[in-house]
């Protein structure tokens, strides 16, 4: 009789452990997938940038600094080896593109260019998708971190070798762009 009770309790414990283990793995997969969502958008953006640069050069060839910044961001993206470096390069690119679109305000002919308009909508919507993807990523990381630091997950995190993951920072560029005062430059 006692053997049966012991076996039942042991069985329940094993099931419980499997459950917690699976939950931790699922949440880890979720934030890793969330990163791939960001990555897809970054790649799409990288593909569009050369086209944009060519179009803008046709109207504003002398804005060398802006093109240099975009070039540097592209190089950083290509050389990124891990999530942190990619994220940093992506933020550089967002800032460089933000400046590029800001100066384009001063060139009415450029703004009237159909190709430019299409690229602008595409790139600003990619920017928007990156923002949403980053939000989803951070949500997923928050869930993962909460699970592995609260009971019962915290008892499993150590043996499983799981540690808290870092959030993606909101890039400075996002706060900067609206403040750029190109309105006075074009006046």
């Amino acid at each position, binding site marked *: 009789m006692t053997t049966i009770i012991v076996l039942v309790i042991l069985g329940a414990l094993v099931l419980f452990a499997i459950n917690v283990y699976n939950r931790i793995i699922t949440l880890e997969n979720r934030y890793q997938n969330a990163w791939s969502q960001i990555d897809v958008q970054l790649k799409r953006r990288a593909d569009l940038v050369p086209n944009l640069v060519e179009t803008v050069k046709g109207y504003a060839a002398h804005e060398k600094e802006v093109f240099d910044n975009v070039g540097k961001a592209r190089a950083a993206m290509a050389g990124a080896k891990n999530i942190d470096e990619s994220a940093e390069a992506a933020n550089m690119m967002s800032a460089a593109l933000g400046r590029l679109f800001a100066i384009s305000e001063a060139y009415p002919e450029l703004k009237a260019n159909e190709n430019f308009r299409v690229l602008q909508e595409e790139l600003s919507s990619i920017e*928007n998708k990156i923002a*949403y993807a*980053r939000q989803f990523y951070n949500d997923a990381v928050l869930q993962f971190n909460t699970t592995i630091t609260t009971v019962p997950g915290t008892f499993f995190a150590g043996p499983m070798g799981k540690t808290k993951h870092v959030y993606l920072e*909101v890039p400075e560029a996002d*706060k900067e762009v609206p403040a750029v005062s190109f309105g006075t430059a074009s006046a």
Partner: protein
Amino acid sequence: MRTSPPAGSRLPDAITDPVTGRKISLLDWKAANLRSSWLLGLLMVVLLGGLGWLIGYAFDPGLATIVLVIAVVVGVGQTLAAYFASDSMVLNVAGARPANEKEHRYLVNVSEAVAIGAGVPAPRVYVIDNPAPNAFATGRDPQHGTIAVTTGLLQLLDRQELEGVVAHEMAHIRNYDIRFMSMLAATVGAIVLLRDVAMRAMYYGGMGRRRSGGGGGRGQIVVIILLLVLLILAPILALALRMAVSRRREYLADATGAYITRNPEGLARALEKLRDYKGAPMKVSDGVAHMFFTNPNVRLNAVGLFATHPPLQDRISRLRRM
């Protein structure tokens, strides 16, 4: 350039249920919908079987089992049809056409962005040529998610407001509201159908026919009275229940939409613009009215037991308090 608010700002991922006043997690809500869909299916089989049996018994006790089987088969068939075909049907009824990649690039981009934020696959996007601003979502699960918006909505709203509306619709998809609501609609429909068939049969053929052996009698009269009461009450109760569930889901979808975009203000402003819209209403079949973002058939907000949507002003002030 960015239209969503900073990713750092957080809204609670648990919201207060407007009906019970309890906190519910957005994840629990999805699980609850999936569970309720099964329960509802079960309840429908029992209800239809019971009603069918009563109707059969009232006419002739020998027919009870046959009518029971017919009622269950028809009801389940109707629900399955609704489950698999309701999306293409409602798109047809509303006159929706697939969004053009070029012409509606903006709408497609907004939907894709919001889908990423909601963590669901990008939905299929449809456009309805109608000046009245409105939108709806359909599809039995996120893999079959579909969003349709009117051209009037695209003209009226700015990007943040459109994101709010799309996020509201995405919330219905993510939380399996559509599956639950179409099951519920099919159940109510089957009950109403059964009532109509029974009423017509009562009118033409006599009830309480005695069998050759002289059975039936007293028991049969009790059944007939019970049946009459049920047939009058059941459709009314079912409809009131369906509308209450529908209103509650609108509040929850507003809250989830605000959570997905982290921007309750965008959705609140969109609702304000719809409230102030003075043009002609959209006019769609009553059968699909509950699916829309705001009730497409009324200009004033219907309030009360049979309204499919809560009053707009109430939805706006709830968003503003978040």
